[in-house]
């Protein structure tokens, strides 16, 4: 990710499967309009559970997008990843003809917070209900948090470096660093991102122990970071996959670089210690800016982690100012995820997609459901704010204590 003569990583394709839109166009339309799709949980078997509000992906028909063998053999989180990868590859116009002569030039990296909970629950119910002989063999791979990387690579015929980042929610950003490293070492393209499917009974029950989960039953009040009403976060399903490429390789095949993956850094400050995330997040921001050779004043927009827990919001607001100085109080800060919920590792990848789209459209999307901000930050609320955006900073933290920052630079030759 170093600028200069090193091999640079650019984003050439975006594929989104989000609660507020399947497909990048639908996602951006809802995101820039500030539409909130948080709603009652309706997924089968979840209705009676004490998690009331979530961001469900309701416009997704896996049967229309995924071959039947993968419907049977993989979990919903992998269906999301496959469909998002298809959209990203289409968007990048990267087809089999481009890489079938050099399949080792394309890799896959995903991040995952859990894995195939719905598939795993079904097979475990067979285990305890009927016995071990009734557990299907595909359980051995479908539940696994590495499944999406494996299946996307098999399905696409990608034989380049593959990886799975299991570093908590912020792993969604770490995946881009992992992909950029592969590109620096010689890989031409990486399909990278994360998608999660945590809205199934077993998976929801696992989350009920998170003290930071919002217990509010009103979808408009359940997730309000940076306000005095902050009462936790709302989970979501879905995510995004992107195509990143070595800049010269992308240009050689006529692809349009949409943004530069300019810098990244990650830190760890321990679970349930939000106060300490201030120092960790600030350190990650400084590291990402240093790698991007970016001065704090150059940051034009911040996509905040915005956990919605007062102590965590305070730590993030302070971290932004610690790292960016006075500029941190003036730079537009947004958290479009308040309209969709947090899709764990998919969350920061959706923010990365939104950041690229924001730079392309010259528009900072708003933070739905957030009105009166009680921190010293310029949080964009209400409606989108027009602004010339050359550099975006995306932040993410995980419940287990990881912090990460990613710096994106807009493409300099993007047609207006």
């Amino acid at each position, binding site marked *: 990710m170093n600028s200069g003569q090193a091999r640079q990583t650019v984003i050439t394709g975006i594929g989104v499967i989000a609660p507020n839109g399947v497909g990048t166009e639908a996602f951006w339309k809802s995101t820039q309009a500030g539409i909130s799709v948080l709603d009652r949980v309706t997924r089968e078997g979840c209705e009676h559970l004490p998690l009331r509000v979530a961001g469900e992906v309701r416009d997704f028909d896996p049967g229309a997008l995924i*071959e*039947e*063998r*993968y*419907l*049977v*053999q993989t979990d919903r989180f992998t269906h999301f990843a496959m469909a998002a990868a298809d959209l990203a590859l289409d968007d990048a116009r990267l087809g089999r003809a481009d890489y079938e002569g050099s399949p080792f030039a394309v890799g896959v990296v995903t991040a995952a917070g859990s894995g195939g909970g719905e598939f795993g629950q079904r097979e475990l119910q067979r285990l305890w209900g009927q016995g071990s*002989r*009734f557990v*299907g*063999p*595909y359980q*051995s*791979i479908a539940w696994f948090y590495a499944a999406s990387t494996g299946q996307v690579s098999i399905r696409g015929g990608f034989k380049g470096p593959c990886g799975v980042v299991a570093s908590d929610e912020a792993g969604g950003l770490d995946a881009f660093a992992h992909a950029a490293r592969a590109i620096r070492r010689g890989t031409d393209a990486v399909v990278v991102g994360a998608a999660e499917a945590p809205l199934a009974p077993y998976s929801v029950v696992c989350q009920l122990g998170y003290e930071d989960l919002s217990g509010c039953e009103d979808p408009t009040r359940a997730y309000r970071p940076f306000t005095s009403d902050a009462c936790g976060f709302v989970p979501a399903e879905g995510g995004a996959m992107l195509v990143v490429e070595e800049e010269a390789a992308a240009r050689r095949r006529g692809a349009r670089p949409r943004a530069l993956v300019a810098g990244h850094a990650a830190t760890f400050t321990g679970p349930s210690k939000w106060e300490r995330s201030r120092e960790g997040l600030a350190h990650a921001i400084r590291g990402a800016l240093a790698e991007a050779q970016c001065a704090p004043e150059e940051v034009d927009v911040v996509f905040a982690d915005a956990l919605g827990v007062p102590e965590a919001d305070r730590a993030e607001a302070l971290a932004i100012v610690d790292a960016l100085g006075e500029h941190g109080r003036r730079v537009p800060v947004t958290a479009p995820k308040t309209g969709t919920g947090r899709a764990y590792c998919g969350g920061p990848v959706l923010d990365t997609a939104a950041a690229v789209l924001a730079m392309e459209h010259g528009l900072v999307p708003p933070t739905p459901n957030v009105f009166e901000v009680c921190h010293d930050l310029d949080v964009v609320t209400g409606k989108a704010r027009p602004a010339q955006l050359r550099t975006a900073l995306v932040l993410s933290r995980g419940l287990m204590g990881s912090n990460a920052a990613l710096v994106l630079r807009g493409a300099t030759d993007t047609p207006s």
Partner: protein
Amino acid sequence: MSDRLTLEELAALMKKGAGLTVDPVDLASRPLARFDEFGLDSLGLLGIVGELENRHGRPLPPDADRCKTPQEFLDLVNNTLMTGA
């Protein structure tokens, strides 16, 4: 179920267990083609072995899930499960 495993039943098992749509006529016309040519991987075959064992309440030989072709698998199943009843 008939007393012998047929290609139609094998195709149905491939559909149910691995999500593969395979024409029994195609299976019959290419008796030496390998399972992987029909899209069935080793986990898929393992699932079919388990399904047959559960249906019949008795085990297949340990090498059942190592059969390479539909014909080889049919012969093995029909020579053990079906005749040993």
